[in-house]
């Protein structure tokens, strides 16, 4: 009886202890299980973000290759570590020609974090091909983009999507006359990196607006320099289109003005849905010139509009900006249409010029109502 009582007291004591330490028999078993979890799938040489950063440069050193093992369409396009080459694990055997010829080159594979096996499997395949200096950055892309000062690189397809949705400002970091004027990604504003401080006012007011910088491809550091400056300014959604304009030209052809501010069918008329979308998402990407009289303008206009009455436009035509699409507005399309044809006639060098062929009612405080014309 005494022994039984002692046993019961011991059991109660142990149970209390377990409760105090927060352990349950199930949890203890689970912990033990995780300690003995099979990690044999992991590659033998794991590195961290510091190691990756220490071996990265723009352009990437010839004897270093950073390889993204994730699927191209669903992952790489949307964001990857700058300088990385896409060799999805599923296509590794078909894309070994992308690997460096030098078998002693440093290969760093990464994928979607610590539970992702793609980079580990790819690394093993590379080693089997004879590469002697193979590493895996196992925390991969999810960790990379959250580290302070880092930013993702995006692909041309993602840039095209951002343009079509008018949700991002695209910035060309190359010199104006030598590069930008000869061709650029549609809707891109030009802020040459060398003039960043002088021209940073072209960046959106809202620091949360996505901003994508690009320049002349993987060997060009300008977009990366500007991206870092933008992050220092407080922009929270900065990325770089690392393959830059050469890749854009390859995929979509040369400079094709007006992808964002596309024509609405009638000559010079901006697509109304696109115009409304630009107003809502990225009004700073265009210059709106209200060509009504000052008294009309004073009663209300678009928030970012400037007022140049059509009667004064000829005198001020050289003041129209050349680095953004210009969109003329009035209340019916009559005066803005006249402004459009005047600009085409007197300043034909200005390529991205439009007017709004619609009825616009301005309600003050930047509020407005746009009615599509019946005849078009």
């Amino acid at each position: 009886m005494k022994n039984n009582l002692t046993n019961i007291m011991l059991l109660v004591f142990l149970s209390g202890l377990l409760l105090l330490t927060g352990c349950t028999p199930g949890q203890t078993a689970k912990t033990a299980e995780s300690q003995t979890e099979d990690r044999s799938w992991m590659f033998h040489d794991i590195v961290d973000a510091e190691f990756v950063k220490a071996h990265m440069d723009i352009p990437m050193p010839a004897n270093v290759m950073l390889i993204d093992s994730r699927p191209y369409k669903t992952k790489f396009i949307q964001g990857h570590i700058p300088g990385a080459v896409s060799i999805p694990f599923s296509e590794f055997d078909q894309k070994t020609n992308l690997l460096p010829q030098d078998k002693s080159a440093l290969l760093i594979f990464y994928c979607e974090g610590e539970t992702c096996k793609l980079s580990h499997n790819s690394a093993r395949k590379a080693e089997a091909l004879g590469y002697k200096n193979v590493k895996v950055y196992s925390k991969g892309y999810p960790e990379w983009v959250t580290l302070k000062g880092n930013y993702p690189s995006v692909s041309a397809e993602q840039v095209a999507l951002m343009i079509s949705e008018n949700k991002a400002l695209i910035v060309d970091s190359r010199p104006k006359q030598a590069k930008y004027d000869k061709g650029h990604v549609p809707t891109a504003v030009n802020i040459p990196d060398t003039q960043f401080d002088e021209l940073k006012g072209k960046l959106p007011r809202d620091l949360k607006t996505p901003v994508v910088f690009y320049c002349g491809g993987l060997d060009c550091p300008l977009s990366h320099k500007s991206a870092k400056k933008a992050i220092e300014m407080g922009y929270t959604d900065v990325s770089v289109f690392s393959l830059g304009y050469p890749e854009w030209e390859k995929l979509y052809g040369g400079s094709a003005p007006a992808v964002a501010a596309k024509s609405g069918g009638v000559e010079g008329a901006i697509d109304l849905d696109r115009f409304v979308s630009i107003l809502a998402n990225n009004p700073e990407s265009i210059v709106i010139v209200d060509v009504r009289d000052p008294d009309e303008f004073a009663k209300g206009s678009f928030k970012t509009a400037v007022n140049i009455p059509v009667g004064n436009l000829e005198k001020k035509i050289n003041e129209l900006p050349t680095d953004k699409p210009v969109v003329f507005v009035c209340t019916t399309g009559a005066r803005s249409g006249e402004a459009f044809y005047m600009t085409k006639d007197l300043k034909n060098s200005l390529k991205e010029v439009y007017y709004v062929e619609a009825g616009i009612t301005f309600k003050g405080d930047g509020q407005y109502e746009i009615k599509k014309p019946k005849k078009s």
Partner: protein
Amino acid sequence: MFKKITILFAAALFILVSNTILVASEGPGGNDRKGKYTYRKVYKACSEAGQVESATPKISPANKTMAEWKAIFEAKKFNEFGCEQHWAALSDEDVLDIYTYFYGHASDSPSPATCN
């Protein structure tokens, strides 16, 4: 009887309005926005040449009806406008654009021209 008259009147009104809209929407087929600019440009050049006092045209599309403008432009009688040399220098396409502007904003058109 009264009901029949009402129906006939409504039908006639419908045909009249429909035809007016149809005629207005058909128009001469040029570019009225470009026509407005070209018309003003003619007067500016004419004024600079000292042939008219003001660079602002005195004749507005709303001064006449669509039928009146049709008669003028089809007959190519532009003497009322003055600036004959400048009118003569215009291409057929420019004249068509100006005609489209005048016709589309005539006094009996759906959107008569205002001072702007």
